[in-house]
């Protein structure tokens, strides 16, 4: 299975579970959110397809020496 094919919550599933969890999403907003999720996933798929096997995340943890 390619990274792009990995199962993901559908927009409808997300909206339902988010509403159950108490996130205030109106029916009117739900359609807009679902549409945005679909369009954003094309960008997500583009990033998923990049071979990052040789790369650590670019979030650096930098310990700093205490003074004194």
């Amino acid at each position: 299975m390619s990274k792009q094919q990995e199962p993901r919550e559908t927009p409808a599933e997300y909206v339902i579970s988010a509403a159950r969890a108490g996130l205030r999403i109106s029916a009117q907003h739900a359609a807009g959110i679902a549409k945005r999720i679909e369009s954003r996933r094309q960008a997500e798929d583009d990033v998923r397809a990049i071979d990052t096997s040789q790369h650590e995340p670019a979030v650096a943890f930098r310990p700093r020496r205490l003074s004194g």
Partner: protein
Amino acid sequence: MTPDITYASIDELAALIRNGDVSPVEVTQAAFQRIADTEPKLNAFLELFEEGAMSEARRAGDEIAGGAYRGPLHGIPIGLKDLVDVAGSPTTGGSPLFQDNVARTDATITRRFRNAGAVIIGKTNLVMHAMGAAGLNPYTGHPRNPWNLERCTGGSSSGSGAAVAAGCVAGAIGTDTGGSIRMPAALCGIAGLKPTYGRVSRAGVMDLSWSCDHAGPMARRVSDCAHIMNAIAGYDPRDPASADEPAEDYTLGLSRGAQGLRIGVPKDYFSGEHVDREIESAVRDAVELMAGNGAEVVELPMPFAAHGRNINMGIVMPESVAVHRENISQHPETYTNEIRARIQSAMTIAAVDYIQAQRARRWFIEKMDHAMRDVDVIFTPTVPQQTPTIEEQDKSSMGDDAPPQGGTLPIFTGVFNTTGQPSLSVPCGFTQDGMPIGLMITGRHFAEAAVLRAGHAYETLAGWHDRRPPLG
């Protein structure tokens, strides 16, 4: 008689102040007068510090008269985007949510401006929570572009762009997570520098995306950006991402000209069908002007560049969810429909996709470093499309399923938030309908000096910065 200082550069103002031809009080009064004249049209400011600024100006005048001149920003009016803390004043982020968010201390940027003797004039308008490329904010009222009041300023540092372009302040601070300094600089016809990530402190600056947020100068001249950088850049232990790199004098190499500068022009992504023809032509002319004056120009293959904006958004959106999660759950009505839908939809992004974007970012930076190994800077358009009208953007951002405001505006700028490279927009011409065009000059990490040198060289040769918007 007081000389006309409305559009004076920081160098010009500093010389007038130092020679006693004009006082900081007169410069500050002129700034407030200009704001009073233009604000009904532009809506560039959210708060003005008239009393405090006049007091700072008087103190600057006294210090200079007493021989304690602090440098080129002493007595110079500056605006701060309303994400930057000023002790005792609310930092609103352009949102009703933060109307009473009074800062207890100055941001590091604010404190450094005060140390340089600058006069903090006020807080500039912005897109709510800095989330938008067109520059609109239905809550605070849309800022308007001084070159055409029906057009967008670009965002999210929209008020800073309009205020500088209209001559209200000599310089202003913007912030840039996907292009929010460079887009309004391009659309308003001024210079705007996103420094290297970590070069300018974000301490006391409201967050949007910790690993993509940058703060930097916006001004009418590249040399003004260099003066502001001299005041604000440098290590700050209050900012966990601050770079422990030695401070530089960014004005030193400014006048080295185009001779010998190595300019790369990407063959991929930053040109072609998706770029407006007038914009592409203006950028090509800028490259030719530099080549005709001694710059070495090479084409660079950059097939990977098309991933840059997607990686940028793959990082910005989950980080912005983390920033806004609690507030958007408890106070969703305080967000615009568009911003609320963007944040709520991003709540579906899996942790593994965020990590993948951060891994892809490192891959992308390696590719970019390799591509730029033999050049000092690259020249590209700042934005690919012409300046949208406020009306068309306003309509499109009303609906919940509307595309993010600004259309394709950030697709080039966001690439360099992924890499964290220094990136400058300077004016490089005007469209047939009179709107400014932006040239983006991007350098290697911590090579702000090379970027500013290239921008100053081009600006001096082309002279676009001498044009003034038709505001009266």
